[in-house]
C-alpha cells in the first residue's frame, strides 16, 4: 500500500467524521465551520485524484464563498435577534 493510498483512506475517514459532526452539532456556527473543513478536505481529495481545476474551484467557491455567505447570514440573523 503506497503513501497515496494511506492518505486517501485518512482523508475519507476524516471526511465522514467531520460531515457527521457538522450535521449533529447544536451550534450553527460550529456546523458552518465544520462544513467548510469538509469542503477543504474534499479539495485534498481532488488533488489526490489529479483534478487541479476542480480543486482550485472548490477551494475558492465551495469552501471560500459558501462559508462567507453562511457567515454573513448568521451575522445578520444574530443581529436581528439582539435588536429584538
Amino acid at each position: 500500500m503506497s503513501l497515496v493510498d494511506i492518505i486517501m483512506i485518512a482523508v475519507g475517514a476524516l471526511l465522514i467524521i467531520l460531515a457527521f459532526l457538522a450535521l449533529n452539532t447544536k451550534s450553527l456556527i460550529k456546523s458552518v465551520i465544520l462544513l467548510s473543513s469538509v469542503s477543504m478536505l474534499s479539495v485534498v481529495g481532488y488533488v489526490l485524484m489529479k483534478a487541479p481545476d476542480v480543486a482550485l474551484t472548490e477551494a475558492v467557491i465551495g469552501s471560500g464563498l459558501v462559508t462567507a455567505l453562511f457567515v454573513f447570514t448568521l451575522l445578520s440573523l444574530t443581529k436581528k435577534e439582539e435588536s429584538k
Partner: protein
Amino acid sequence: MIQYAAIVLIVLGIYGLLTNRNVLKMIISINVMEVGLNLFIISVGYVTDGFAPILSSVHNSSALIYVDPLPQALVLTAIVIGVGTTALGLALAKNMYNKYHTLNLDEMRDE
C-alpha cells in the same frame, strides 16, 4: 477508499435532510450531499498513475496516460450550480426569519 467515503457522504446528506428541521442545517446537509456527489463524480474518472489532464512542458504529449477529464468538467458545472442553490436557500432562510422569527421549519405558523 475515497469513493466509498463519497457515497457515505451522499447518504449522510440525505439523512441530515430527513432528520433536521432547522433551515440552516438543511442547507448544510444539501452541501454535504453535494460535496459527496462531486467527490464521487471525480472518483469515477480516476486512473491510478494517470496524470492531471493538462498538457505542459513536463507532460507534453497526449499519448501519455491521463485521468478522465470529462468528470472534472462536469464537477466544475455542478459546483457552481450548488453555490447558486445555496445562495438562494440562504436568502430564503433570511426571509423566513424575518417573517416567522424562527429557523425551525415546524414552528413556522402564520400569525
